[in-house]
């Protein structure tokens, strides 16, 4: 758990050299109910007795040389998100806890990671040390549960607790349980000032008096209730990474590295007889931002060449947006959505089946044009023509609806307009096809027609203003055939309207 109490002011001073060189205290203010109140104060200002929620003019009276700026929350939130993502170079699962802190606290799941840094103590030292070197005020702690780590990082920074955290938490104030201010003051009034004082108490009474949240937070801190981390980045199941001594910038270099990493990842997956459907490329920039690119495959794969090509296609689309900043110092290629993929033997007499090639083609096209550009028709249980078929991405294939209607023997057009277009008809005979129509300002005369095919409203699907449709196949003088319908029966609607819905071959 890493806590950055002065993150906003630290971050701005890093971004702005004029602020970094300042001699005066620095605060950020924001408008609240018409008053200008302090939102964030830096270390210097805090030591002079300024605090958040103070009136800006009061603060100026206390500290005349105060450097004050209006806060830009949207910008800070975005920078914090990048900042949090950057920490995934230490551990793959990074989440941001939003309890009782303006931007959130970074929570890293370091299970099975610490040994890479030479132990937990060394890891904590390295993570906090590198942030301090960058000018951030940071406190950190390591514990077995999220709640315990949070309390320790706030009130006993630097501690590392293994096993049961009961003893380590006992002397800490109750505010360490992520409670709101009312609950904390209530507890303190009752003389329950430390977490340890809560240990032996009747849980039901505590819950009734201070709310269920207190009991829940206590259990979470003591590790009796499991709390889940919500990782910011997609969960990574296997990955390969490369760090660079010198940052790289060119997109070609990035793609080359991605190809190398794909080969390594493929070997890793092959060893475990696995294939993956989603691949993510994370580019860690030296200025603490992470760019990520994801591609999906229609079927589980571990073909390095194919993965590399998918990324190359995706990048081609992004050329304008790619911005390496001051360079990229680490690239990680990760795979998720794993599934077993046994190696197959190429048989001498097997009929070559093109489905594998096709799936790779769909992957390539979808990686460049977007997943919604390669579509297949899925039949749905409906007899309203436009609902009977759903166009769905080929790479996210779903089985056909088992209740989909048997193919109707009535004619269906080969092209369907996305929305029926209103037409003007001439010489209509009740319950017969019209003699002609005007569509897109051109008049057509029909020589032949057949119909009607009556399609009733699906009363079980709620839709306003739908009417029974009578469909006709009409052929004009030149042999073009149209699928037209009248919306509403005579008598059901006052003036039934006519629409053109599709074209036959």
């Amino acid at each position, binding site marked *: 758990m890493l806590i950055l109490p002065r993150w906003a002011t630290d971050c701005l001073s890093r971004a702005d050299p004029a602020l970094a060189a300042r001699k005066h205290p620095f605060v950020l203010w924001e408008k609240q109910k018409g008053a200008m109140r302090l939102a964030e104060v830096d270390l210097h200002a805090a030591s002079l007795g300024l605090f958040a929620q103070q009136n800006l003019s009061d603060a100026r009276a206390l500290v005349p040389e105060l450097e004050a700026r209006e806060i830009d929350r949207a910008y800070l939130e975005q920078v914090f998100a990048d900042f949090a993502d950057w920490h995934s170079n230490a551990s793959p699962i990074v989440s941001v806890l939003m309890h009782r802190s303006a931007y959130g606290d970074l929570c890293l799941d370091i299970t099975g990671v610490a040994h890479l840094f030479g132990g937990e103590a060394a890891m904590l030292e390295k993570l906090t040390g590198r942030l301090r070197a960058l000018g951030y005020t940071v406190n950190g702690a390591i514990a077995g549960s999220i709640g315990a780590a949070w309390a320790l990082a706030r009130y006993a920074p630097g501690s590392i607790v293994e096993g049961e955290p009961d003893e380590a938490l006992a002397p800490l104030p109750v505010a360490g349980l992520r409670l709101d201010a009312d609950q904390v003051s209530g507890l303190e009034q009752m003389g329950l000032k430390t977490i340890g004082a809560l240990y032996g108490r009747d849980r039901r009474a505590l819950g009734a008096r201070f709310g269920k949240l207190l009991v829940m937070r206590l259990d979470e801190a003591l590790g009796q209730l499991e709390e889940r981390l919500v990782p910011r980045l997609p969960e990574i199941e296997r990955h390969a990474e490369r760090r660079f001594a010198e940052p790289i910038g060119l997109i070609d270099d990035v793609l080359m590295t991605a190809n190398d990493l794909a080969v390594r990842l493929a070997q890793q997956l092959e060893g475990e007889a696995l294939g993956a459907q989603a691949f993510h490329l994370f580019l860690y920039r030296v200025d603490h931002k992470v760019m990520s690119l994801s591609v999906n495959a229609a079927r589980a794969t571990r073909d390095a060449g194919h993965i590399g090509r998918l990324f190359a296609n995706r990048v081609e689309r992004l050329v304008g947006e790619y911005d390496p900043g001051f360079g990229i110092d680490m690239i990680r290629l990760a795979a998720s959505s794993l599934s077993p993929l046994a190696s197959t033997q190429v048989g001498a007499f097997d009929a070559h*089946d093109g489905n594998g090639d*096709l799936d790779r083609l769909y992957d390539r096209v979808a990686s460049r044009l977007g997943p919604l*550009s390669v579509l*297949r028709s899925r039949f749905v249980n409906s007899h309203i023509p436009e609902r009977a078929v759903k166009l769905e991405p080929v790479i996210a294939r779903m089985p056909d609806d088992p209740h989909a209607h048997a193919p109707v023997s009535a004619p269906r057009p*080969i092209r*369907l307009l*996305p929305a029926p277009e209103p037409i003007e008809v001439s010489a209509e005979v009740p319950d017969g096809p019209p003699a002609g129509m005007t569509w897109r300002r051109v008049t057509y005369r029909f*020589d*032949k027609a057949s119909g009607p095919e009556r399609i009733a409203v699906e009363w079980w699907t709620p839709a306003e203003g739908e009417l029974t449709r009578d469909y006709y196949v009409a052929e004009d003088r030149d*042999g073009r055939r149209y699928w037209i319908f009248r919306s509403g029966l005579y008598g059901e609607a006052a003036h039934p309207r006519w629409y053109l819905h599709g074209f036959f071959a």
Partner: protein
Amino acid sequence: MRPHDSTTIDRLRAQIAALEKRPALAEDAVFSGKADDLLPVPAGMLHEVFTDEHRNSGAALGFALGAARPLLKPERPAILVMQLSADGREMGVPYGPGLKSFGIDPGAVILTRAETVTEFLWAIEEAVATTAVAAVIADIASHQHDIDFTVSRRLVLRAAATGTSVFLTRYGTGREASAAKYRWKVLPTPSGSPPFDARAPGPPRFAVTLEKGRIAGFSADWSLLMDWTADGFALVEHSREDSQPAHRAAPLSGADSAALGDRLPLAG
């Protein structure tokens, strides 16, 4: 011609074909008077399917799908229909149940939509370069001028290399330089009537002209009438439909209005 002369000629033909990057078979397509022999032509060719107006888009797609259907094989199980998204909104998108009633497995038809013409051309080339695709049908309703000779030449070479056929459905009466091996002109034609119902439209009927490309025994200026049936294209016998082309040639002649006048007694 001595026997070894003909083998020499065959060998030389194959060499020329290899130089030109196309299957030598193409010259051997022989038209024997049946539509089945006209279509399919050998795989791995670039076809242009021209029709005069955008509103004939149903006929153009139908002809291309009909010509592509025999190319479906177990090792080439898909037909890709490619469109620009804007064209799809204007002219409609292929409709699954309609494909089924046309006689094509809707599962074999994959629709690809691109936003820009660059991506569109890239996607066509990518699909043609795959050996698992039976045919690529690209609907080029707008951006006609971006499909120039270079583009078509690239497609010809790719198609010859992989054996994937390409059908470009194009609209309008202008013809630009193109490397396409075959250029068809397809127009919808009033269909024959199904038995027992003179007023209902019958199976789709196309007037097909081969404007470019050589099929032995088939003269380029013939215009054939073909019906699309469950077994594929079928030539409409001229004896039965003799009067039909004459009507089309002179739409304002007396015969035509007489035919119109005849409709009333027919309708009874």
